[in-house]
């Protein structure tokens, strides 16, 4: 399997010029840098490149902040490794020729259905707020935000 996506990744990078690391530049405005390898024999170099799509500890910290999820310090390396593995899997996509293919969001290409602008929901605020960890006088309570 590993060999398979390395091979496909090689084709991908040639096809996918914009995202290619052949120019030794990361795409602009990306929070995570693709690490480029030193110059080697071409094949080795490309393979190394694929295996170096790697998220490290600082990437995990950024992602954890974006997703508002605390990642325990003791598990950061493990999380970084497993996310690197998943990204290596999904990198096979770059092998696909998708020129001129419209992205598909709904299997039947359905569009958003509209409804009449009438009130259909009843006010159930108290029931909903009864589920909250902390609520008072119709408000959800959180730690102080503004001094």
């Amino acid at each position, binding site marked *: *399997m590993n060999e398979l996506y390395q091979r496909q990744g090689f084709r991908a990078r040639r096809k*996918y010029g914009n*995202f290619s690391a052949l120019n030794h530049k990361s*795409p*602009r*405005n*990306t*929070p*995570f840098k693709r690490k480029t390898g030193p110059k080697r024999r071409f094949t080795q170099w490309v393979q190394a490149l694929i295996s170096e799509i790697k*998220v490290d500890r600082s990437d*995990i910290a950024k*992602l*954890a*902040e*974006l*997703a*508002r*999820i*605390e*990642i*325990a310090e003791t*598990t950061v390396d493990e999380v970084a490794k*497993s*996310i690197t*593995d*998943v*990204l*290596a*899997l*999904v*990198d*096979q*996509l*770059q*092998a*696909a020729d*998708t020129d001129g*293919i*419209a*992205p*598909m*969001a*709904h*299997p*039947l290409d*359905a569009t*958003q*259905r509209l*409804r009449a602008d009438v009130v259909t929901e009843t006010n*159930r605020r108290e*029931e*909903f707020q009864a*589920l*909250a*960890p*902390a609520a008072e006088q119709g408000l*959800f309570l*959180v*730690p102080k*935000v503004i001094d």
Partner: protein
Amino acid sequence: MHNLTIAELIHGLRNQEFSSVELTRHYLDRIARLDSRYNSYITVTEDIALAQAKAADERLATGDAPALCGVPIAHKDIFCTNGIRTSCGSKMLDNFIPPYDATVVENYRNAGAVMLGKVNMDEFAMGSSNESSFYGPVKNPWNTNCVPGGSSGGSAAAVAAHLAPAATATDTGGSIRQPASLCGLTGLKPTYGRVSRWGMIAFASSLDQGGPITRTAEDAAIMLNTMASFDDKDSTCVDQPLEDYTATLNDSLQGLRIGVPKEYFGEGLDPQTAERVQAAIQEFEKLGAEVKEISLPHTDLSVPAYYVIAPAECSANLSRFDGVRYGYRCEDPKDLNDLYKRSRGEGFGEEVKRRILVGSYALSAGYYDAYYRKAQQVRRLIKQDFVDAFNDVDVVMGPTATSPAFEFGAKSSDPVAMYLEDIYTIATNLAGLPGMSIPCGLVDGKPVGLQLIGNFFAEGKLLNAAHQFQQVTDHHQQTAPDID
């Protein structure tokens, strides 16, 4: 009574061979006595079940009985149930008591079904082994050292252990069909939009679809008749006329065109599983079907596309769990950000966090085109493979899973190995097509499943083919050992 199918139970209840209260008590007793072996239930709703059974018996006595009147079923704990804890297999929702019923739950209630309880699942339906549940893994009734599959592992184990005659389930990448395969059951994932997602806790909204897990295709047809509906409250529900799926079960398969994708028999498929699946396809030939090899050339890309699209949608959907309005909140948050981060960090399990992080990565600025847009384009290529195939064939058949049930821990430390478990089922979700798994034999005493994939809204055709197969074979009648 616990060996009867839904069809037989309906018959027995209407002929007053037994009452719904007797039947329901029988199942509740079995659950209390046996479920410690399997851990298939998270919540048993004994009082509600008995009250519903009593009401059902009254309706049966008057002759005014709806379709499933008095029939006990279990709901996957992803479907919201008014006043009953709905955990989605997560610590995050361990304390969540929904103030409303999912449309699926309402449909079954209106049809007179009795709710036995809420069954176990992988956390937020993310997993293929049921090892990610906050409530502990479910064990496969065929071999309790093995996983039942996932994410609807509790639904499958409960039905396989005869702790429910049928259960609701959901399928985002194979979560109905793979556990049905691993537990020797019939599982149906309908066309995307056929079953309402309202009140079904969202994982990947463009892929999630509810469906039944049963012992026979006939039962699946009966269950789908109630489950399927057009629902204004789900904006992606498709307004397609409802049909009676039992009406076409007995149609002849003479001339049915079956396509067998060569990509589904490649490397990675257990040879004995392949043999059982091929033997099953030959049975269809005996029933008058024509079998031809087809190609679904983008099959290899389905797992990679899925692991961009599903995590991306999951990261958006699960942002609602913030420790503010409902669900888990951490102790003593020092500020709002700390409240969010620790509530989510402590409330979600490892696999859920991994997918949220992968989704956040794929959707982050500068990476959207390379990952999400690319995956959505590949998704169309995968769908087009099927559209082309269905020009020539009526049903596509192949294996549901690569092998029979594997042992606990075999894949849980390697997420990519676990993801590849769904290699034959994921494309169906990406394309939005209906898919089904039916038992087709045993390998080392463990069941394997035959997958049937149909064209859009061709559930009736799949159920018909599966039912005809089950008329001439007995794989679906095999039960797990030690089922008293």
